[in-house]
């Protein structure tokens, strides 16, 4: 069996880690020979997921964020972003474009962007336990 490459990151929910997390995932994805557009989409989706942990999951304290990436067969990048924060009571409502519980510095477009930039997107959450975002992006094979 072929051993698939993976990496796991763990860091506190400081906003300075937003840039670190999206750059680290982009660096890991670079071995899959992505196009600039694919790399941009991956960076954006990771930025959204990690920012949500920082802003919403741990609103009043620092908590741990875990990012796990795997390379699957058929050139698929599998990304899981996980927190142990407040959780989401109504998942359908949270995913709605422009829905936000944040202030005027939030746009409510995070999940909409993750959904449209990734090949697949799954959100699971339990109030009081935490939230997990599972995304996959299939990369074009370049001739």
């Amino acid at each position, binding site marked *: 069996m072929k051993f698939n490459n993976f990496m796991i990151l763990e860091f506190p929910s400081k*906003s*300075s880690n*937003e*840039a670190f997390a999206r750059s680290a995932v982009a660096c890991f994805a670079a071995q899959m020979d992505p196009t*600039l*557009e694919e790399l*941009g*989409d991956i*960076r*954006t989706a990771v*930025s*959204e997921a990690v*920012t949500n942990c*920082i*802003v919403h999951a741990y609103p009043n304290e620092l908590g741990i964020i875990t990012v796990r990436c795997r390379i699957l067969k058929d050139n698929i990048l599998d990304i899981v972003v996980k927190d142990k924060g407040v959780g989401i009571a109504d998942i359908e409502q949270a995913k709605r*474009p422009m829905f936000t519980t944040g202030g*005027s*510095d*939030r*746009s*409510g*477009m*995070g999940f*909409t*962007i993750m959904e*449209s*930039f990734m090949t697949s997107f799954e959100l699971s959450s339990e109030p009081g336990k935490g939230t997990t975002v599972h995304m996959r992006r299939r990369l074009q094979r370049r001739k």
Partner: protein
Amino acid sequence: MQFTSFLENGHLTVALTGEIDHHCAKNYIQSIAGKIEAYTPDVCILDFQDVTFVDSSGIAVVINALRSMSQIEGKLVLTGICAQPMRVFRASGIDKLVEIKEAVR
């Protein structure tokens, strides 16, 4: 966060730089609102030429600038948007709310 701005014939140009994410968005939102309030321009131009990355926090920056300009019955224009920011603006429908000049280079 780093930005420069200048006023000419009632046109306020604000040149943004670098990566716009949640980490710096609040500062941008407040600084742009402050400039618009101070100069009450007819047109505010947000120049994205040196912006290499935006996420949905960048959408909030644009929407807040749009709100400030509507309050003084002025117009908001975006210029110099690179490919990645343009994809984010399109996905959010912002490109239908504000005028965009010299898109995707």
